[in-house]
């Protein structure tokens, strides 16, 4: 294969990672050889990162903060905490490795604080010890011209419980990847997500759950609503290895096209090597119920309000899994506020 011509964004990223070690070196090498991913890469076929990054040419700074202070690259969290990904304008890289010790219970509230034009590539490695419980509540409320690419890898030991609830409003391109290794044997994974995309926004939710041990439970529920000229992408995969008998895994994606010019692409996949499992996936796209809309307007609600109520009631369910009342209500309020502006 001949050498590729790098875009300014790619050159900046290559320079930024010059002399780096471990995963950074591997990431640099991939950009040198292939550039940023385009639609031609199967895993990126609906999210052209190379194209989205046009116009972003400088390097910036990004970091993870824990409870307001710069976080160490590796840390142990054994009590409720707030994690923030902060990024300036420009291309940046951030990484954090988090250990949740066996037997502890943690609620991690995660925020993205991105400047206009920020293009952070972030990596999270999370390990749950035996019997640990982690509830990760992620608010991805980012400027329209930012490009957050966040890849989380989560290792869930037996008896552990991992719960993730994500609220995403998209941007020029938002890519949220979650890759879970699920040990089974009493371990449970719940993946909930809501995306609401206003005109011009793009959000890509890509996840894999690999069941490696027997008797694991996974429930995934992603719901979205997409306005005209916005694009929602869901790529979900459950992989059940041969040793993972009696796996119980269910994946559901449901989304509303708020306009004929909305785009939603979904690819739910099951890859099963065990014979005694219960695995299912469902994917359904729909539109606002016009009859309900008329009924509500006949009772005096404005069209905007009636639509907002219908969309909210459609989207709300995945946020119900948030155990903390205050946190759940906070996210619901943010969603409601954003719905007031949706057309």
């Amino acid at each position, binding site marked *: 294969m001949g050498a590729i011509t790098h875009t300014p964004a790619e050159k900046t990223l290559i320079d930024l990672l010059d002399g780096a070690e471990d995963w950074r070196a591997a990431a640099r090498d991939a950009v040198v050889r292939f550039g940023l991913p385009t639609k031609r890469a199967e895993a990126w076929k609906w999210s052209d990162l190379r194209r989205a990054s046009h116009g972003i040419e400088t390097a910036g700074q990004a970091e993870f903060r824990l409870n307001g202070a710069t976080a160490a690259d590796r840390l142990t969290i054994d009590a409720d905490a707030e994690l923030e990904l902060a990024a300036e304008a420009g291309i940046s890289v951030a990484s954090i490795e988090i250990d949740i010790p066996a037997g502890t219970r943690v609620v991690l509230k995660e925020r993205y604080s991105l400047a206009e034009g920020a293009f952070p590539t972030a990596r999270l490695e999370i390990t749950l010890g035996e019997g640990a419980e982690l509830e990760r509540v992620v608010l991805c409320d980012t400027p329209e011209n930012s490009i957050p690419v966040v890849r989380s890898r989560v290792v869930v030991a037996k008896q552990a419980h991992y719960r993730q609830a994500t609220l995403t409003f998209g941007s020029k391109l938002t890519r949220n990847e979650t890759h879970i290794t699920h040990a089974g044997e009493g371990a449970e994974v719940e993946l909930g997500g809501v995306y609401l995309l206003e005109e011009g926004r793009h959000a890509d939710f890509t996840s894999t759950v690999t069941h490696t041990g027997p008797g694991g439970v996974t429930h995934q529920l992603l719901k979205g609503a997409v306005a005209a000229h916005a694009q929602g992408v869901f790529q979900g995969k459950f992989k059940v290895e041969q040793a993972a008998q009696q796996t119980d895994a269910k994946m559901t994606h449901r989304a509303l096209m708020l306009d004929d010019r909305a785009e939603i692409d979904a690819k739910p996949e099951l890859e099963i090597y065990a014979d005694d499992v219960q695995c299912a996936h469902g994917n359904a796209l729909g539109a606002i119920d016009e009859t309900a809309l008329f009924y509500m307007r006949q009772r*005096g609600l404005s069209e905007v309000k009636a639509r907002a109520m219908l969309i*909210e009631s459609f989207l709300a369910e995945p946020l119900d899994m948030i155990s903390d009342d205050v946190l759940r209500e906070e996210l619901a309020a943010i969603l409601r506020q954003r719905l007031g502006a949706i057309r």
Partner: protein
Amino acid sequence: MLKINNLHNKVETQDGEEKVILKGLSLEVPAGEVHAIMGPNGSGKSTLSYVLTGRDGYEVTDGEMEFLGEELGELEPEERAAKGLYLSFQYPVEIPGVPTITFLKEALNAQRTARGEEAMSAPDFMKFIREQAKALGVSMDMLKRPVNVGFSGGEKKRMEILQALILQPKFLILDETDSGLDIDALKTVAEGVNTLRSDDRGMLVITHYQRLLDYIKPDVVHVMANGRIVKSGGPELAHELEAEGYDKFIGEAA
């Protein structure tokens, strides 16, 4: 109060064809009166209710609809509602995820705000809805459930009347409110409707059967066929229809 003159409308069917339904309908309901519309299936009764309340897709091609001195044609459904027009749906719609109480509070206050009135406070609203629900035999438990979800046909009709009691509209269109009701439920619902009868309120009661009109006594009965009113008369007309059927009127309309 409500004046309809020479009303024509059309809808677009699923195969993209135009269908004319109302073909020159005229009708006038003065304040304080209850008028009934009777007519066979497919004569355009529900269509009239949708055209009056402004449903998308029910295009007026000719004629006028005047409510309280104002032409309705240009108003959005919610503007018509705030002016006091209320439709009790033939098939009430289920709205999953939206509790009935929340829905009604939002609707009432949206109407009030549109009219330049003050919103009703949450405690006042709860008191009000509790009283009205009790009168109609609707439990608070039902009100906490999502709008119409899982309700029987009869419960839905009861809820439609409860909503009218909460919203206190100036004009009610009841589209086959009697269908799906047993005789006891019919009496309760009719009582609810009768409490709304007053000198400054009008009603249009659409029904198939004379039965409902034994409980909600109309001042005038209109017979509708093929998109038009073909005959109008006093309450005795309902009995005549019941005894003789619609056939002779349909003959007149064709």
